[in-house]
């Protein structure tokens, strides 16, 4: 199996080397598109690298009895990498089509748990091809989390091990397809107006998704639904959300030539400064706890989470309202509609 991973890596890296810009070099232009594309491309490469290490560690755990903790760490690193791309709805279609295969959320009805249990009951030798034919709920990072953290998981029994290896192998395949898709700049043909729409939608979609990760578990005031939390089994929801915000700040700044600078150039320095300051203050005051699931069990935890949600909502106001109006942008022309 290791051979497979090496092949996947080399395919992506080879293509990267063949492109006109070295994939690992920050673009020397001051073009916004180049830098945002570079950030996305690098995020996709980090995702494929971490998911390949996850597959390798799962195999090592099951065949060489290496420590489960190693698999957990690699799962966490893959989750962290995924947060840079999670919730985005702009980019190459071949990459976006796999979003739900990488992670299915929210999982109101414990579909992941039910379908994973069903797979384990089947008398089946699982491999990545068979996993590709299964529900997306059993293909992604949530399925791996179930194997690693759910009490119903029978790891390291043979059947669970085999299923986990097939899932992580398929995950590595899917992330390599994502990285492959990002080898081509999807925005190279856009004029400035269409590009700005895309760029701001990229940010806005990710912010909307991040907010949903809080609003769904917060539910109605005083009646939280903690099982709607992302990664409630591993109690790491707030850690992942923080990486979302870090990724959005990186996209906003885009190596110093992003939206922040564009707003300044267009005479909106005050707005640019408010957005950057709000990103920074949100991250500097991030909750200590990593567990949204635990936070929502207490009144003070609920209030703290609500305060965090309000900070993201203010970011949304700045981007959806002030930026969109100042730059005359329609965020998701039809996508925010229902007619």
């Amino acid at each position, binding site marked *: 199996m290791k051979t497979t991973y090496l092949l996947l890596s080399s395919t992506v890296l080879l293509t990267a080397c063949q492109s006109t810009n070295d994939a690992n070099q920050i673009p020397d232009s001051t073009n916004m598109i180049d830098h945002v594309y570079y950030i996305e491309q690098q995020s996709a490469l980090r995702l494929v690298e971490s998911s390949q290490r996850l597959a390798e560690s799962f195999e090592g755990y099951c065949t060489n009895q290496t420590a489960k903790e190693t698999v957990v760490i690699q799962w966490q690193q893959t989750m962290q990498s995924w947060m840079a791309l999670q919730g985005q*709805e*702009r980019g190459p*279609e*071949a*990459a*976006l*089509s796999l*979003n*739900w295969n990488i992670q*299915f959320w*929210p999982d*109101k*009805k414990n*579909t992941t748990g039910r379908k994973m249990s069903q797979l384990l009951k089947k008398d089946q030798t699982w491999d990545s091809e068979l996993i590709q034919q299964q*529900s*997306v*709920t059993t293909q992604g990072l949530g399925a791996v989390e179930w194997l690693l953290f759910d009490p119903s998981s029978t790891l390291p029994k043979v059947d669970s091990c085999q299923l986990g290896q097939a899932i992580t192998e398929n995950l590595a395949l899917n992330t390599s397809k994502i990285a492959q898709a990002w080898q081509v700049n999807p925005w190279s*043909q*856009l*004029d400035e*107006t*269409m590009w700005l*729409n*895309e760029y701001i*939608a990229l940010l806005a979609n990710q912010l909307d998704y991040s907010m949903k990760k809080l609003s*769904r578990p917060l539910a109605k005031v005083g009646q939280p639904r903690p099982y*709607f939390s992302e990664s409630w089994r591993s109690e790491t929801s707030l850690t992942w959300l923080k990486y979302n915000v870090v990724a959005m700040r990186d996209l906003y700044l885009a190596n110093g030539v992003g939206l922040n600078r564009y707003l300044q150039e267009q005479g909106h320095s005050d707005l640019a400064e408010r957005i950057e300051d709000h990103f920074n203050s949100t991250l500097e005051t991030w909750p200590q706890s990593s567990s949204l699931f635990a936070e929502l069990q207490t009144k003070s935890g609920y209030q703290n989470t609500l305060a965090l949600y309000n900070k993201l909502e203010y970011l949304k106001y700045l981007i959806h309202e002030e930026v969109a109006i100042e730059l*005359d942008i*329609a965020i*998701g*022309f*039809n*996508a*925010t*509609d*229902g*007619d």
Partner: protein
Amino acid sequence: MQPMVINKQRRSILKAGIGSMALSPWLTACSSISGVDNRPALISCSRTSNGNFGAVVANKEGSPIHSIPLPERGHGVAITPNGELAVAFARRPGNYMQLFNIKTGVSYPITPSRPNRYFYGHGVFSSDGLTLYATEGEKETSQGIIGVYQLQGSQLIKVNEFSGFGIGPHEVIRVDEVTLAIGVGGVHTQGRVPMNIDSMNPALVYLSTETGKVLERVGLPDHKLSIRHLSSTDDGRVLCGQQYRGEPEEGMPLVAIHQRGRPLVQLNAEPEEWLRFNHYVASIAVLGEHVVATSPRGNCYGVWNLATNQLIEIAALSDASGVVISTSNNGTPQWYISSGTGKIVSRTEKGYVEGHQTNVMWDNHWNHMPNA
């Protein structure tokens, strides 16, 4: 009634952003072989680069030929069967219809909504092109109305109203010479805010154009599935696309097919697959035994095999919006799918997909010229 004249007759103008559109490699490739085909093929409402709204008449590649300014955001378009005239409908709750000439881009005085009426975004011409049927509603109640208009020269004169078929109609199509199918959403809105989610009563309704009477009415098991967008097969079956107004975590079927005299049959997909559509289907088009349904809110479109009632694929397309059937340069019929991001995708029934970028932000629906 004195028509509210906002625009005098005017020549179409290609907005600077559209006029300076870079030719895509796809278009360039086609052009180098056969020259640019500048015959009108596709029509849609759109948003312009400076934030205004218009209707765009485009060639087969989606390159604008005419841009007709609209006073407010448009939605659906109806084309006369001879391909001479089109009407752009205001997005609901809408206050105008805009008649224009497809070949010249000349627009005529708008047709305003009557007092206590809104336009609901769609309409269809009779087969002789002389009568227009538009979905409308009463302002206070959203009671559904089909406004019947006679085309007299460059004017649309309201001559009748059909009512009594339900609340909140959206798309209307012609299924034969004397029958309309209407997606009756069931939702009473104030502005765009729904007021009756718990009691909404959507339906697919067939109406006689001769009598205005309801010929048949069918519903879905869940009353929160608002029936909105329609398409039909060559053999007369009607497909409808829904917007789900219930809990966000419910993966409800959003497309159904109907044969007269039988119940609606929902298309198959797993709940987690339906969730990809984010509770909303915008446009539907049938090609052979397959159907494509777009979801701008889900940033995707789905492909089903109607013979097996099986989901074939969900493909990502940011802000996926309109879909029509048209023929490629080599005569192969295929889906043309638009996007609010300007992307256009063509897809054959066998699944061969091509895409290219335009600089038009396409609105929810596309229409294609007869025989284009």
